[in-house]
């Protein structure tokens, strides 16, 4: 059974149809790349899955249960985490506190949670900055902090929105390793990017969106040679 199952998803903004019957499924441990030009509906799709937008039609299943129309915090509690195109950290909170936010509802004692947060910061190489405010980090460090915060509650599905945009190559390599580690831990990874190289490297399967529709869904090689994808990217 797949972790995430999206079927017939439609989202309209006024007259604009942002998503037009998007359907796909993603299994645990899979890195599903989602590609498409600006305005293809990638971010809208993500916002629907995590509950920020209420879809006009269609369903989203998580582990067999319907989550469509649930509030974002309920969907998050069910194991969906994400990062943002432009990092959205809690600016005037320490890094430790940033990581504690997604696990505040856990019953575990504070001390256990703090130690878990410290371990996570160590993994993300941010441990020496743990008492700093998030606003004091560089752009790349904020991306790592977001990733750490996303992983804290051990989510089943994670969605990464343009994780490599504007990131230094060294950091880029480090983030790729982290994503591979997530997949190895049986997390379902949705990777949004318009940078095809990183997608081709990480993803076993790629979903190509254009004007709110899935125009191709398949292995990397199939997508690379797909005429519809080439046309969407290069124009006719």
């Amino acid at each position, binding site marked *: 059974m797949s972790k995430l199952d999206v079927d017939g998803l439609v989202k309209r903004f006024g007259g604009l149809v942002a998503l037009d019957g998007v359907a796909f499924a993603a299994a645990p441990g899979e890195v599903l790349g989602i590609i498409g030009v600006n305005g293809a509906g990638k971010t809208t799709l993500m916002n629907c899955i*995590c*509950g*920020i937008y209420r879809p006009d039609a269609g369903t989203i299943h998580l582990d067999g249960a319907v989550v469509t129309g649930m*509030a*974002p*915090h309920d*969907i*998050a*509690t069910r194991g969906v985490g*994400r990062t*943002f195109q432009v990092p*959205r*950290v*809690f*600016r*005037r*909170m*320490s890094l430790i*506190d*940033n990581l*504690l*936010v*997604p696990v*505040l*509802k856990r019953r575990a004692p*504070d001390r256990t949670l*703090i*130690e878990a947060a*410290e*371990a996570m910061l160590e993994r993300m190489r941010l*441990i*020496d900055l*743990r*008492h*700093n*405010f998030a606003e*004091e980090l560089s752009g790349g460090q904020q991306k790592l902090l977001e990733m750490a*915060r996303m992983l804290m*509650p051990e989510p089943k599905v994670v969605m990464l929105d343009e994780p490599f945009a504007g990131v230094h190559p060294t950091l880029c390599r480090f983030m790729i390793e982290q994503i591979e580690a997530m997949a190895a831990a049986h997390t379902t990874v949705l990777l949004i990017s318009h940078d095809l190289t990183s997608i081709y490297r990480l993803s076993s399967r790629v979903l190509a969106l254009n004007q709110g529709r899935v125009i191709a869904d398949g292995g990397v090689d199939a997508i690379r040679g797909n005429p519809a994808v080439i046309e969407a990217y290069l124009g006719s």
Partner: protein
Amino acid sequence: MATATPSSRTADRERADRIYFTLAALLGGIVIVYFACVPLLGGNLAFHFYLMLWITMASGFNVSSGFSGYMPFGYVAFYGVGAFTTAILVKKVGMPVLATLPLAGLAGLILALLFAPTLRLSGIYFAIVSLALAAICRLVITNMPETITGGSFGLQLGSHAEPVLSFYVMMVVMLVALGTILWLSRSRLGKALRAVRDDAEAADMMGINIARVRLQGWLIAAFFPAVCGGVEAWYTNVVDTETAFNTLITAKTVIYAVAGGLGTVTGPVVGAIAMVWLDELIWRRFPLLNLLILGLATVLLVLFLPRGIVGTVLRWRPGWRRFVP
């Protein structure tokens, strides 16, 4: 900084906590001893009563503005409603004053629940709506039958004045407020509130029920000014709409809290102490200029010290953030 191993990190954390709680206990102890001695040693009762009142008001305001990110420019509404609740219950129902104080707080909570829909607004819209709601409260109470609210003469509490007892009650209220905020700043609710303040949508996607968290913060922020209103009514023995809903009460609360620095426990306390003292000094020397200087001080604060006294110090010394309550 020793960060190499988990165990050294634990030791480091325990040391920071020790400093934090020692500081909190030390400052709390000084405050308790100082204020407890005022009536015993024949100090200026009125000055210190109002000092405690403003510390409580500014601290309560801080829960809303510093922790949750809302600037209620109609904060006086809670104070005024608390004052009238106590006055009406004492005068018209004949309850003992002390018993009315929790009910004054309850009235504040009820008012906060009525205003809760405004929490979905943000920034300037919230500020303006809050202002208008306070004006509505004042108008409604002003226009209630004179037999209930005493009309323009207000309500005299009569023979219930007990300056020293009400002084100590004010002290208890202040200590409860400070204790609550000390707890809040380390609690999970406090972290959730700060997250919502910094980015509500992101917090929502991190599993925080933002509507519930905001409401909880809002109720805490509304409770204390309402009790303050009740205690002050008891202390001065008279309540009328002109003073109980005076916008200057909001103004002073906001200015004192901002002067100290929003978002820390000590900020509003330091701000209230500094500004009340300054206010008294100016009041004595130039009674006519008092209001003018209050206005100018606000402008200067916003322009030159927007983070307040404590906030500015912590900006210079970020390492101290772990130790300063």
